[in-house]
């Protein structure tokens, strides 16, 4: 960068700073307290966890910390359970976010139709989203009960085999994915619905007059208008489900045989059951780095488009 370019940028920076300072002092005064609190309850613990990841720390006595450098990270590389948890986490995140997106968009387009009773359908759709995850898992466990679960009663009534599906090596993980999709798809649908309703109708009329079919209208009108909100939803729920804990912990405990183990439950197990806080912190740091990489790449790519 040349000196003149640097000077121009610096002058611009000062001009903008002066504008912000003079015109938005009140706004800043509202934002700063929340920022400070967020820093205290989010940033500080993150930094502390990263720091702890370089130590051997027991949950029983966290004040007793022994420096081990990168040893915890080396252990991660050779830890088979970590690999399983990482694989499951990626599969869970990719599959749930993808399916939620597709199903949510489809549901939104259905809800947009001016059919009678749609407002009640919208209310019913939201019920799954507002149900607390703990309640959802309890209901799922009940529904899966091998003796009196409603799923098994229905299956046996039509002659199909029954099982404790959350305890099945084959079906536990798909069941976990289903629960994730069940709880979040309504939110996608509602957000997409509001976005769809904001698209001017005359755009569709215009492309129809130009001879475009439904799919073309969807591709060239609907999707671009959903681009920004899609980015927010995808990033938000990728982070959310990458860190997913409640459904797995309460539903399957990470079993059977680690088939549903995800990184968040693995961190919990290492921290509070195996009592290896330092190692758990290193796994958490790896999660943070992976999510940061994803978020930066996605936002940059989306921004360019």
């Amino acid at each position, binding site marked *: 960068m040349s000196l003149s370019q640097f000077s121009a940028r610096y002058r611009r920076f000062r001009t903008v700073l002066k504008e912000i300072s003079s015109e938005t002092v009140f706004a800043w005064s509202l934002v700063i307290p929340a920022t400070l609190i967020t820093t205290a309850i989010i940033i500080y613990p993150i930094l502390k966890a990263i720091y702890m990841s370089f130590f*051997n720390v*027991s949950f029983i006595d966290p004040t007793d910390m022994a420096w081990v450098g990168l040893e915890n990270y080396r252990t991660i590389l050779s830890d088979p359970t970590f690999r399983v948890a990482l694989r499951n986490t990626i599969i869970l995140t990719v599959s749930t976010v993808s399916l939620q997106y597709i199903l949510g968009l489809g549901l939104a387009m259905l809800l947009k139709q001016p059919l009678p009773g749609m407002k009640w359908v919208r209310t019913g759709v939201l019920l799954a989203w507002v149900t607390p995850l703990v309640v959802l898992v309890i209901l799922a466990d009940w529904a899966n009960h091998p003796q009196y679960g409603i799923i098994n009663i229905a299956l046996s009534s039509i002659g199909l085999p029954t099982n404790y599906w959350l305890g099945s090596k084959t079906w536990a993980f798909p069941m976990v994915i289903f629960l994730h999709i069940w709880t979040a798809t309504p939110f996608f649908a509602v957000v997409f619905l509001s976005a769809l309703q904001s698209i001017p109708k005359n755009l569709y009329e215009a492309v129809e007059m130009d001879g475009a079919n439904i799919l073309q209208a969807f591709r060239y009108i609907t999707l671009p208008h959903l681009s920004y909100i899609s980015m927010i939803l995808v990033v938000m729920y990728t982070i959310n489900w990458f860190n997913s804990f409640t459904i797995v912990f309460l539903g399957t*405990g*990470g079993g059977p*045989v680690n088939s549903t183990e995800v990184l968040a439950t693995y961190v919990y*197990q290492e921290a*509070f*059951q*195996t*009592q290896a806080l330092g190692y758990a912190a290193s796994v958490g740091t790896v999660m943070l780095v992976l999510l940061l990489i994803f978020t930066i790449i996605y936002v940059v790519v989306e921004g360019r488009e």
Partner: protein
Amino acid sequence: MTTLAISGCLSDNGGGGADTTEEDTTTRTQEPTTETTGSTNGGTAGSPTNNETAGGDTSGAAGSIPTDTPGGQLTVWSGLSGGTFEPWVDWYVPAASEATGREVNYQTQAYPDLRQNFIVGGREGEPDLLDGVFGHLVEYLQGDLIQPITEQAEKLEHFDGYAESAIDSLSIGGELYALPYLGNGRGLVYRTDILEKYDIEPPETWQAYLEAARTITAEESGMYGTHYTTHPQTTRGFQEWISHLYQLEENFYVQEDGSWIVQPSADQFARVFEFYNQLFAGDNPAMNPAERGTTSDVHDNGYFRGDYAMLPNGPWIREGADIEGADDVVEDSAVTHLHHPSEGERGTYLEIKFVLPNSHSDAFNDAIIAAGVWTSPESLRTFKSEVNRQQVAMVRTDVEADYNERWQPFVEIFESGTALAPVNWGATQNEIRTQMQNVIYNESDPAQAGQALHDRVTDLTQDFE
């Protein structure tokens, strides 16, 4: 990761020891609930003063324990949640308030939450007194959260009434750290009507048990022979597994020349895993393969629904049955010692619950007094009659269990129990559960699982101090 074990006077043999309770599974969470009473600042019948028993303290809990500065609050954390315990709590809170001259703030939490919250925040001084299970005792000691109470406890008027085995189980290095209030051992609960129907004697050996269970599965429509808890996060599964291990070997960890070693061999671990493997073997398996990975809710309630004919279980099964038709099942039930391998002998896991004061509490002596009230004969008799938990009688020689003939064997079963060694069991439990999962889901055979477990727990002993 560093795990510590306390070099103590205990091996696994005899006495008491405990792990998480049957009432609170690792998967239950609960917001703390609070009950307080207004007994304040020495106003009632005289505060306990030095070398004086508290006025109105019929339990003799204060004895001659020097008290702390009178007044203020005494926070008690308990895992005894639910309405069942309310009659006893209604007795305990005023009694403890009277004995200590403090307002008792009684809060309940699930044991896993209680443990975590205490480890994280106990150094701030709260709670003053907490309820615990044996696996937590060593963790609290390693975290410098508790200290010996021997000197003060021996001043309790009713101290001599504690069962020696219970006191021994809560002593480490010759020092007492907690006071016991409940003990139980796991036995075999079975349906007399079903066994009689198929002319089956109550099985004493593992092989007889499996054969009996398979017969029942084959012949009795809608019923499986047995059920074991195999959920990957449940402590009940660990307790059932180690109950059987103690039938093969006296201890899990023992001290030798100042170091901890693993006493059972890999083959002995494999034997237990083989038993679990056989539960699901055959055309008419002893246990429903579709119920792998289920929790203690399925276990306990399933018995009273008529889903199983035999179960490894404890006295809590009787007292917790509240589903329709349970009374009829109880009428047709009996108890005997847990089935054991033909080359082994009777044995079971021994559980003792206790209360212990927080060493960071500013009312340490009052907390001991409150612990004395909790574990006094009067308290345990109230517990027995109001809550109908006869297990409290196991830890005192001056309180009798009122089991009827059907459940009386639990007394003898308790006496055959083995406690956990005073080491940190967290990683060991995880490994046992992992290998159990591998076996029941056919990821590895019992021999491999036994060897893997032996290798891992042997490694863990390197970190024990």
